[in-house]
């Protein structure tokens, strides 16, 4: 894991296998702490993807287990979450990896004249 000191797998792209929803949630939380409904709305505005509520809670639990997000004290019935330092680092590593893949793909397209 990137950065999570819990399992000591420093430097790896842990987000490669957690699914798109988890990455989108981390991107949204990178802009500030949010609860479930705010996350769904933000992700919809940001990338046009509407997360289902079941998918959202599954991803939130997974990210929390990985230590990439932290639950904040509940506000009424809503539980806000914030990204942790390992979560931010993991997101950075993943986005860097996506950038490299994107650059390689564009280069191949250009070289292939497509």
């Amino acid at each position, binding site marked *: 894991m990137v950065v999570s000191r819990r399992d000591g797998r420093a430097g790896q792209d842990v987000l490669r296998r957690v699914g798109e929803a988890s990455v989108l949630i981390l991107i949204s939380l990178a802009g500030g702490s949010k609860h479930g409904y705010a996350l*769904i709305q933000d992700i919809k505005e940001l990338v046009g993807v509407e997360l*289902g509520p079941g998918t959202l809670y599954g991803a939130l639990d997974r990210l929390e287990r990985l230590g990439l997000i932290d639950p904040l004290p509940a506000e009424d*019935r809503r539980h806000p979450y914030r990204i942790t330092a390992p979560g931010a680092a993991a997101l950075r590593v993943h986005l860097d990896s996506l950038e490299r893949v994107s650059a390689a793909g564009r280069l191949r397209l250009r070289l292939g004249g497509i």
Partner: protein
Amino acid sequence: MDDPRAARLVGTVLRCYPARWRRRHGDEAAELAALLIRDGTPAVSVAWSYLAGAARERLTPRPGPRLTAVACALLVAACSVGVSAGLLAPAAPARAASTSQARGRAHCRPGSPEPVPGVTPAMGRPQVIIREAGHGRSC
């Protein structure tokens, strides 16, 4: 939720989640469903998403308190067996040696009155090898 049928549908689906999940997210999930339905998301779509989430939640193995308790119990049991074995160890060899030599292995002794098939008498020492079905056993 304004529509009681939608509320009932979502409530039913949320009951498919494990109790632990419902304690943690149940109220918020019901409120989130109400907000999404109010925004125009079909209730069936919300219910379906929760149903799929409940199935994933039930099927995903995770080390819960029960598993941890079982692991702890096994560890404690293993430790107590180890401690008991350690306490009994000094007494056991002597007792085992006296009983086994006295009873079961009389035929192994040199100078046994009846010859035992498969017994090779050792030269100059009181130890023989018995070969049974390809396995050597010393006594």
